[in-house]
């Protein structure tokens, strides 16, 4: 088996036994990136010398007790700050921005000895569901380069699917890890709100944003998740909870008797037939593994998209006020006074979708509209949260499709923002409620991968990872890779 196909524990074992070095491993992935990035545009920045030098340090430190990520390359979404490596967030606004510090998640990876192999493409400031809103051109889906990889963490998902990196980090505000994981045929998880520090992550919607892992397998995803999670007093929303631990033994537990809820608002006649068929087959597999399928209701599901597209733009309009052309961004209008620096820098630096969301957010927060939109959305958000809280009194896990469709063609939805927003229909509710959720490969439609979404109780990522692992080992969809 090629090194590119191996999982983290296999690679770690080889590194510890000195069968390969981290430098050799890193060069193997760098070579893969160099051969395939022209087709995929999944990486925006790769600093080969820096990666090789980090790998050389890992080689010196490796021993039998080393963390499983020591010496392993990890790709990082470009909205996560990496010291001395340009971090643009997919925006022209930060085209020349080179951070002077690492995000906490990156610092944790470096402490574990991981090698930062590069920065991955994404929708500008994580706003999008297709990666077409990147200022540096769209990332392509490795299964079919005429299609989108999903978004906003499209580059991170495509990189793992295309074997350019063993694992990667993304961020999820409305589905930006799970939807691209589904569309690229890999595993991706949005952890519980508060589980992973956002210090050093470009803020989009702070009450929703969460950093999370991508991997080819659930086990890889679990290892990466454990490494980046934990309390950080530099993120005021960080919750002091014990991490799940680096051991993945818990994944082997069977799921007999586990209650899996299927919400009628997600799985009904509106679902596309091929998605429905695949989902029903996935449920049968879970039943065959001993899980008990129960039909449940999440009554406010139909309002989740509307709620999300008020709350997220409102917070974005506030968060993105920091991009002012003064301190660390693109500057335009220098000779026309301060106000014109703000206006011209922001107009030139932000792409259309980011501007659209800033305008929408400014509108819903403005005097005369605040109560009708923003306050109402907060009430609905609480109702959605209560839906999940009530449902989890009856079941242990909730299952839904991750995406209403397989990967769509580049340009197919780009002209209609509302149609693009509806691509998030199955993923927006959990950031609103704070619950953890992941996507695990569950088959193919028209030779394109599909994802099964598993939603868990707050801080109970272990259960959804356990179910996903059992499902994955039974179905083995993870063994199929795109022919790139």
């Amino acid at each position, binding site marked *: 088996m090629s090194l590119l196909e191996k999982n983290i524990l296999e690679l770690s074992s080889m590194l510890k036994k000195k069968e390969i070095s981290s430098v050799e491993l890193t060069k193997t992935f760098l070579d893969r990136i160099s051969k395939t990035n022209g087709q995929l545009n999944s990486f925006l920045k790769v600093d080969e010398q820096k990666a090789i030098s980090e790998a050389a340090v890992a080689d010196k430190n490796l021993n039998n007790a080393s963390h499983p990520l020591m010496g392993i390359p990890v790709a990082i979404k470009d909205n996560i700050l990496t010291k001395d490596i340009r971090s643009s967030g997919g925006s022209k606004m930060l085209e020349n921005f080179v951070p002077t510090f690492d995000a906490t998640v990156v610092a944790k990876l470096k402490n574990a000895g991981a090698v930062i192999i590069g920065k991955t493409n994404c929708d500008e400031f994580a706003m999008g569901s297709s990666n077409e809103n990147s200022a540096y051109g769209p990332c392509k889906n490795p299964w079919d380069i005429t299609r989108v990889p999903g978004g906003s963490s499209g580059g991170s998902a495509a990189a793992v699917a295309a074997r350019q990196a063993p694992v990667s980090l993304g961020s999820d505000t409305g589905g930006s890890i799970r939807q691209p994981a589904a569309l690229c045929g890999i595993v991706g998880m949005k952890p519980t709100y508060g589980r992973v520090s956002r210090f050093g992550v470009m803020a989009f919607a702070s009450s929703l944003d969460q950093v999370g892992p991508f991997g080819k397998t659930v086990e890889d995803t679990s290892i990466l998740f454990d490494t980046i999670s934990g309390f950080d007093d530099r993120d005021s929303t960080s919750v002091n909870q014990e991490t799940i631990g680096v051991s993945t033994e818990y994944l082997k537990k069977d799921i007999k008797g586990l209650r899996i809820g299927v919400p009628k608002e997600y799985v009904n006649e509106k679902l596309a037939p091929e998605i429905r068929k695949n989902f029903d087959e996935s449920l049968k597999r879970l039943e065959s593994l001993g899980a008990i399928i129960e039909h449940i209701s999440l009554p406010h599901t139909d*309002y989740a998209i509307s709620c999300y*597209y*008020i709350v997220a733009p409102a917070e974005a309009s506030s968060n993105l006020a920091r991009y002012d052309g*003064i301190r660390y961004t693109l500057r335009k209008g220098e000779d026309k006074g301060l106000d014109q620096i703000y206006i011209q820098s922001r107009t030139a630096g932000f792409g259309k979708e980011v501007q659209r969301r800033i305008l*929408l957010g400014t509108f819903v927060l*403005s005097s005369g509209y605040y109560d009708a939109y923003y306050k109402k959305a907060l009430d609905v958000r609480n109702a959605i949260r209560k839906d999940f*809280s009530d449902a989890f009194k009856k079941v242990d896990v909730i299952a839904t499709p991750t995406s209403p469709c397989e990967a769509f063609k580049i340009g197919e939805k780009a002209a209609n923002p509302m149609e693009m927003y509806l691509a998030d229909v199955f993923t927006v509710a959990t950031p609103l409620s704070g619950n953890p959720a992941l996507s695990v490969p569950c088959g193919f439609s028209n030779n394109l991968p599909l994802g099964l979404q598993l939603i868990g109780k707050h801080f109970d990522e272990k259960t959804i990872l356990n179910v996903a692992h059992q499902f994955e080992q039974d179905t083995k969809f993870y063994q199929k890779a795109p022919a790139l």
Partner: protein
Amino acid sequence: MSKITENDIIKIAKLAKLSIDSNDLAKRVSEFNDILTHIEKLNTLSLDSSTGAVETPKLGMFEDTPRPSNTIEEVLKNAPSSEKPFFYIPRVIEGGKS
């Protein structure tokens, strides 16, 4: 809700420190109204006081302990224009000698 007009968009853009190309204005208005039509679905929902009663996670209180932060050199490193230890911007107060 009433439909958003071109003048409304111009006003919102002004508040958000953005400038809208006049050739783009009609399209922006149309997209904006499409989105509003969808999100106004929330107004068809009536919530009683018990609907939102749910426990939210409790955030901890942190000690406010001083610790080293970025140096001035680091803070100014990405500035488009600076003169240590300041960011450089055009004059904002009228009058006086330049």
